[in-house]
């Protein structure tokens, strides 16, 4: 598989075309706003956490295929999980795309592994990371605005 094909895999393109859990979420318990000032990627992430589990999740905003697919797959991944379960996945994902994940860390990532190709495109790592940084921010309860640059 060429570098390019490994970056723009069919699953990424399809999430880009038809993002999951796209839209507002009201009410929500957690929210963060992630922006990448360099490229203008700009997403909001909303979580509704009940009994320590993510019972509802959504995102909205705009960005490149990588950032949008990453957001879409993130929402699928976290839905139904507890915060404690989510944290190691987030950490493993951020390591995956920066090429520092161990085999065990990769193992817990499931279909998120399709983002591994991003590590070959250093300028695009931030795109894949953006929504995960927003997640990190949201669950740290800071409800702020975060930026990856």
């Amino acid at each position, binding site marked *: 598989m060429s570098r390019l094909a490994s970056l723009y895999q069919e699953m990424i393109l399809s999430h*880009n075309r038809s993002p999951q859990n796209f839209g507002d979420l009201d009410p929500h318990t957690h929210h963060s706003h992630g922006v990448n000032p360099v490229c203008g990627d700009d997403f909001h992430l909303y979580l509704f956490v009940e009994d320590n589990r993510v019972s509802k999740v959504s995102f909205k905003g705009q*960005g490149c295929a*990588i950032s949008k697919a990453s957001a879409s797959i993130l929402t699928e991944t976290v839905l139904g999980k507890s915060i404690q379960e989510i944290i190691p996945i987030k950490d493993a994902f951020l390591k995956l795309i920066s090429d520092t994940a161990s085999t065990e860390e990769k193992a817990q990532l499931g279909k998120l592994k399709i983002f591994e190709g991003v590590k070959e495109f250093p300028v695009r790592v931030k795109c894949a990371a953006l929504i995960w940084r927003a997640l990190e921010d949201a669950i740290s309860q800071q409800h702020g605005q975060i930026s990856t640059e």
Partner: protein
Amino acid sequence: MSELTLRQEFPIFNAHPEIAYLDSAASTQKPRMVIDRIQGFYESEYATINRGLYELGYHATNNVAKTRDAVRHFIGAKDSKEIIFTSGTTAAINLVANSLSQGLLKPGQEILISQMEHHANIVPLQRACDQYQLRLKICPITSNGELDMDAFKALLGPQTGIVALTHISNVLGCITPIKTICHLAHEQGAYVLIDGAQAVAHVPVNVQEIDCDFYCFSSHKLYGPSGVGVLYGKANLLEAMPVYQSGGDMIETVSFEKTTYADLPNKFEAGTPPIAQIVGLGAAIEFVSQIGFDAIQAHDEAIQSYAYERLSQLKGIQIFGPTSNKSSLHSFVLKDAHPHDIATILDQSKVCIRAGHHCAQPLMSHYEVAAMARASYSVYNTSNDIDQLISALSQVIEVFQ
């Protein structure tokens, strides 16, 4: 065929023969003659300037003076003391925004810019407005992607203190009628600052004919080294303006009680200047002058019309800006493909373009896009580069359809 054949003059294409470099509006590559000049200067002529009582220092001082005069000639200024070397366009605009607002404007006056300005021609003026109680006014652009002259005339008035406009938009490529602008602005008593960053490599500039009060540009977009730029200002204004940065070389006498400042141009050149870069800029101006603007403009026209012909046939493309009376670049979006994805995919085919907000976020807001892709052309580009661009874009369309 009016295409220039200068690619072999640029060592970068020797190192990377397969590259189609279409990001010259961000920064141009450097011809052999500029690189050699800088190298030669460091190897056998380097010394700091202004104070050297030895021959090396004298020659370096002379070299800088000669470049100052070459710049004067290049932009048609009257006197070489009107040529201030800065670290770039951004520093030049900051100087004017600050010093002119502080020294020659009154609270309540307006600074008139446009919707299509580069951040470098927005933020310093915005900040000057905050600091000196001035008001920022924004001239809209037409649906065609040019300055809206009717709106400009309506916004201009005796309350206008500064008109600050780009000569050529780095996104739309449109050419501002700056001579008319200056005439209208001067009728109202306003000063005119022209951001020439995108212009000097593509169109001949004569500041006396234009009659602008300030004009600035960066060497790195004119085939010259990074780290140096030029501010032109009318002598009487520069003389009346307060100093901006201070330090060595720009003073006449310093005492703890009272410091007096040197005459132009030194007054605005604090500290050791970018000596080797100034000398390199001199070589860049020589390079451009040897080609001549007739040949450059014919080349630009050939490349850009070929590019437009090919680009406009692509499925789902939207190209911004006017189609005539414009400079050598095309900003566009493709349906369904984000500009960053376009740039990444193009890079795999060794096509270098820019994607993003191009330091013109208010213009992006105007078009309601977060980003655009931009291909910009220069003397070393050929129609082959355009073919490479088009075939890579076709691949993008395939991936994203």
